[in-house]
């Protein structure tokens, strides 16, 4: 706080501006920044979530780092991130370009597209669980053998289902971002291309895609960092199973912390989650190639 009031701004004597920012700062520091520091601190303790907190040095870290579950959880997290990115990005670009068109039927389709965006992950996961039930779900009811697999009971299939449901939920959001991006492309580019005789596909690859570069970075950043937070959907859909086939880091943290009452190791995993998130955001920002003077994640 003193940092805010200690620097009297030059041209605005006794400006109230820092005070305007204070409420947001207080809540954010209290429930995001302090917890962020706290999670580092807690990773060097032993705590069962109820009793006293004991400092325990590197015990929790050792427990986490020597546990074979960690590389697996990291791998699953990485896989979910990459595969869902690879599924969502091309589809979102196509749909976004499609929605940027002016025809009325597209607008009407758009209304339906965004319904998944309104639903809670819990609701989506519960509905899909019933829909995919091997005995009573959609596939069994329609007597389509290919559709009546034990979707959530086999590791590979369960992973595929998670990626599918994630895409089902979030492609609408990202196609919306791309729609906005496409609409900001200067029309003169297309007119020039048309005069040069470039066809639709050529225009898409030579104009639309390159012009969407920053939009791709924005959308990918949100997708990638967001994929670290897939907790509720996977928790309700598979609980990390079968076995630990879909046990991503966030879920691993919850299970160790709030189910096994090992808050120390859970905090260590949370720290890893934070570091991965930061590293990814920085990497993507570098890829974006925007100057550092502008705000971080400027593309957003």
């Amino acid at each position, binding site marked *: 706080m003193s940092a805010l009031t200690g620097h009297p701004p030059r041209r605005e004597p006794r400006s109230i501006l820092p005070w305007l920012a204070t409420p947001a700062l207080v809540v954010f520091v209290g*429930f995001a920044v302090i*917890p962020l520091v706290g999670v580092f601190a807690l990773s060097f303790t032993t705590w069962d979530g109820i009793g006293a907190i004991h400092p325990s040095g590197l015990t929790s870290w050792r427990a986490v780092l020597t546990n074979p579950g960690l590389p697996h959880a990291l791998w699953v997290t990485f896989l979910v991130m990459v595969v869902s990115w690879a599924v969502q990005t091309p589809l979102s670009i196509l749909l976004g370009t499609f*929605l940027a068109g002016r025809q009325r039927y597209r607008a009407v389709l758009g209304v339906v597209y965004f319904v998944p965006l309104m639903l*809670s992950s819990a609701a989506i996961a519960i509905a899909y669980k019933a829909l995919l039930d091997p005995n009573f779900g959609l596939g069994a*009811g329609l007597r389509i053998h290919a559709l009546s697999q034990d979707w959530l009971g086999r590791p590979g299939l369960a992973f595929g289902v998670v990626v599918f449901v994630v895409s*089902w939920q979030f*492609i609408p959001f990202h196609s919306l971002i791309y729609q*906005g991006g496409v609409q900001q492309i200067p029309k003169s580019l297309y007119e020039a291309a048309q005069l040069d005789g470039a066809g639709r*596909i050529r225009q898409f690859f030579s104009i639309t895609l390159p012009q969407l570069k920053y939009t791709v970075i924005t959308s990918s950043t949100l997708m990638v960092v967001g994929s670290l937070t897939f907790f509720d959907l996977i928790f309700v859909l598979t609980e990390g199973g079968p076995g630990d086939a879909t046990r991503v880091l966030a879920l691993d*943290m919850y299970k160790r912390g709030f189910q096994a009452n090992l808050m120390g190791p859970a905090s260590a995993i949370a720290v890893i989650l934070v570091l991965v998130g930061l590293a990814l955001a920085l990497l993507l920002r570098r890829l974006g190639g925007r100057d550092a003077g502008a705000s971080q994640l400027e593309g957003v």
Partner: protein
Amino acid sequence: MTTTLTESRRPQKTTHGERQGKSRPARRRNWAGGLAGWLWLVVVAVPLYWALITSLKVQSRYYASNPLVPSGDPTLDNYRLVIESDFLRYFVNSVVVTAGAVIPAVVFSFMAAYAIVRGWRMRALRAMNGLFLMGLAIPLQATVIPVYLIIIKLHLYDSLLALILPSIAFAIPLSVLVLTNFIRDVPKELFDSMRVDGATEWTTLWRLAAPLTRPAILTVTIFNALTIWNGFLLPLVLTQSPERRTLPLALWTFQGQYGVNVPAVLAAVVLTTLPVLVLYAFGRRQLLSGLTAGFSR
């Protein structure tokens, strides 16, 4: 902001011709996009349709009938079962938590965004902006264990306030980002003329900046409301008693109890989703146009 409306029902003479030029598909057919568009409609709509019609089936009929054919004699019994299991209480909890978190989150974020834009020369405010942006890059769920500890220490565990406070904090990064983007667009001359007229920052904030950025404020409000309304992790971790459940958590426990009665579970899904869909029907244009504008910069 105005160029992002998806629909052209509103007469916008100035941008109309421009958009026609932009959206080349007006002339020739975009087969790839069109095909993807219709396919995606099927992918999105079939599960929704299935959940809706199944929720209206008698349980015994559910196992026997074609899953995609609506029941000949639809029943509301499943809905009755859900509503009788304290649905109203969970609904009220969700409303309290959402309103209790969204209103302060948006007001605080707006004040902060205004300060950041107007006080960009002040190092402290720039640093604060950087701090908020950092929140975008960090999965805030990772902080849930210390949040849990803080809530216990504040003696707020198992209360609705326990859900409200962290929800405000989690909503701030994105809200500040979107709002600063919009406040930057307010012409500087307007601020200057307000100052010449002797207006304080406080007056300028509410009389000039707020009305001019109303679409952004609305968008941020809707977006945060959606996120908090659908929140699952915080209620799961920070509350315990059934009286404090919010809708997503109640849905999950209901599923545990009535898992065999699939139509009833789906009725619960539909019921918890309905309020949001009703709001979507009204606020759709605002939400979609605001989101496109807010994120595509």
